[in-house]
């Protein structure tokens, strides 16, 4: 759908507020991140020293940072794969016409509306090793009391699970919408031709869902790299021993706790380039397989 404007000025004028906000809150800080990444800075910029590429060199030669990068990738893979598969399964089930379907669907979407701090606190109260509900029950029934936040693997598992749970609502909404756009006749036709339920899903539903799935793949990846910060901060604070110290948390720590604004800016630039790179890669590979068109 195209609009025809009489002159060039009007569309520009209409766009101006959005461009201004984007400029102020997105592009200008981004540019400042780039320039600050070449500095060693303290006190939010009250003291600076030009160090060129030193920050980048130090980051790429630091085993701690490379470990953080690895953890983030593992983390993202977990959140994306688990998140998409579980929410697709739930969406398929929620798509059925049963009584109270509306209530179920609302309940499924609810966790998405929680703030990350609230969601994190809920999980903390559940899984706190000394005061949590889960360990209270486990101790009295099975007799074990796992140390959810002090054991490295359990801590990663905890954060991944909480992150997946938090984003289920978002994925389910989109999958439901996508499923409802799958024309009933196509499924019927496949069934009449003798296809099993599994084949129907794999060869008919999924390709028709692929635009939605692809979109969610990108969004979940962005969420796993950036949006999980709140959960990590409340649950493990990057610990134990940096097991859950994903890139976004590491840069927050360097900026707001260690007063190293230049180093943190360099990290944000690297993270930005990484995620943009992954997104482009996705478009080139998986994106080719997406089946557009009704």
């Amino acid at each position: 759908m195209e609009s025809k404007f009489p002159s060039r000025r009007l569309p520009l004028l209409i766009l101006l507020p959005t461009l201004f906000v984007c400029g102020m809150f997105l592009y200008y800080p981004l540019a400042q991140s780039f320039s600050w990444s070449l500095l060693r800075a303290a006190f939010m910029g009250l003291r600076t020293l030009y160090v060129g590429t030193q920050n980048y060199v130090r980051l790429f030669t630091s085993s701690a940072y490379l470990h953080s990068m690895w953890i983030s990738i593992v983390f993202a893979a977990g959140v994306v794969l688990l998140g998409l598969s579980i929410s697709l399964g739930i969406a398929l089930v929620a798509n059925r016409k049963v009584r109270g379907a509306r209530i179920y669907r609302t309940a499924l979407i609810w966790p998405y509306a929680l703030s990350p701090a609230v969601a994190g606190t809920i999980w903390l109260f559940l899984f706190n090793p000394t005061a949590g509900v889960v360990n209270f029950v486990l101790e009295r029934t099975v007799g074990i009391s796992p140390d959810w936040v002090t054991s490295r693997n359990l801590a990663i598992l905890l954060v991944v699970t909480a992150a997946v749970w938090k984003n289920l609502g978002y994925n389910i909404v989109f999958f439901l919408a996508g499923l409802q756009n799958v024309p009933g006749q196509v499924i019927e036709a496949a069934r009449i031709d003798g296809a099993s339920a599994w084949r129907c899903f794999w060869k008919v539903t999924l390709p028709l869902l692929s635009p939605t799935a692809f979109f969610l793949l990108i969004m979940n990846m962005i969420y796993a790299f950036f949006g999980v910060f709140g959960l990590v901060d409340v649950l493990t604070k990057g610990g134990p021993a940096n097991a859950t110290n994903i890139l976004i948390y590491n840069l927050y720590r360097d900026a707001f706790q260690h007063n190293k604004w230049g180093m943190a800016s360099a990290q944000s630039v690297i993270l930005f380039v990484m995620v943009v790179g992954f997104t482009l890669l996705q478009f080139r590979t998986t994106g080719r397989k997406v089946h557009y068109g009704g």
Partner: protein
Amino acid sequence: MKRVLVIVMLGLLVFSGLVLAQEKTKVVFWHAMSGTREALIQRMVDNFNLTHPGIEVVAEYKGSYRDTLNAAQAAAVAGNAPNVLHSFEVGTQQLLDMGIFALAQDVIDQYGVVIPWQDYLEPALNYYKIGGVQASFPWNSSNSILYYNKTLLDKAGVTMPREPTFEDIVAISRAVINAGVAEGGITWPMHSWFFEQWMAELGANLLNNDNGRSGYATEINLLDPAAVTIMNWWKQLYDEGLWINPGRESWSQARQNFTTQRVAMMISSTSDVNLTQNAAFDGGWEVGTAFMPVPLGFDRHGVVIGGGSLWLTKGHSDAEMKAAAEFVVYMSQVAQDITWHQSTGYFALRKTSLQALDLEGWYKLHPNYKTASDQLAESQISTATQGALSGVFPDIRTYIEDAAEEVYGGASVTDALTKAKGLIDQALVDYKELMGG
């Protein structure tokens, strides 16, 4: 008609004059005390406003010490810093380097406010004295002490000496666990602050260059025998299941372990005396306090001042600076010092306060409040107990706590400390370079 106009104009003039004459000087005070302490501060601020017409102090809780410091930095960059800032002791070097604060002594000299420094406990003053000049106003000062559950210890048949050793703690922990009266022997927040307190107790400077006081530090003494001894003891307690890990920097978690009688002992700040006594009363048990434990064979050197102090920012009008100074002086007065001490457990900073409470027999009824002061009074004066000064304390604490976590995870103490030392030394050198020192 003209007459009415003149009368109305005169009336407005007088009215505006009255309004202007009644404008109070506003003093913005940012602090980092939450919960009951926030309410306490608000009451003290209300009292000040009531007794000082012409000044209105607005107190705001800004979050943890780190959050408060960050908020102050952001405000300084934006040009609207608060008049009075409450900051933790380890932020001192950073605050000095930020260059936005007026030194306490300068303010006192310039605005003629009266503070009897000679009445203050010297260690508290000395921490915040830089190059012989008082930089900030000590306010909530603490050190760490040992709390213990008298009831549980009695049940296990052990007693706590006034000045315990590491070995005493191990023995008592084993006794309470074997007697089945507690799940664990002792707990404390997994926090570098305690490591720093123990370094001072064992007489070791945390940093070089006289603990960072004669110049920017460039090295941390993490391979000093004292440091290794401390970390080895932490490891021993963890490996034997005598120490329960409440989590990293988890003050409330540690307190909870103690007040629910999961453990028989706790090491925490003296500012928890009021809290633990209330909890003990509710739980029907008795709480006692003792000095920090030291290893056998080491002399006891004393503790470092913890807690925080009050800083005044520059760049305000004379009226505001004077009002802010008056507020800080008020908070330091004996009456407020006693109120603050009794309602929290932060020790009384004024010798007059201590004398008054002694005279009135208050300490006989509430001996737990005196332990920290006694421990401080018996501390030797040295750079070790004066406390380290560094602009990269957040880094130092992160890496020391990382090292502890690695040791609990099975790494060797020397490896963990060496790794931490490497990272911290780099951070110290970077900071010194950035400040042009």
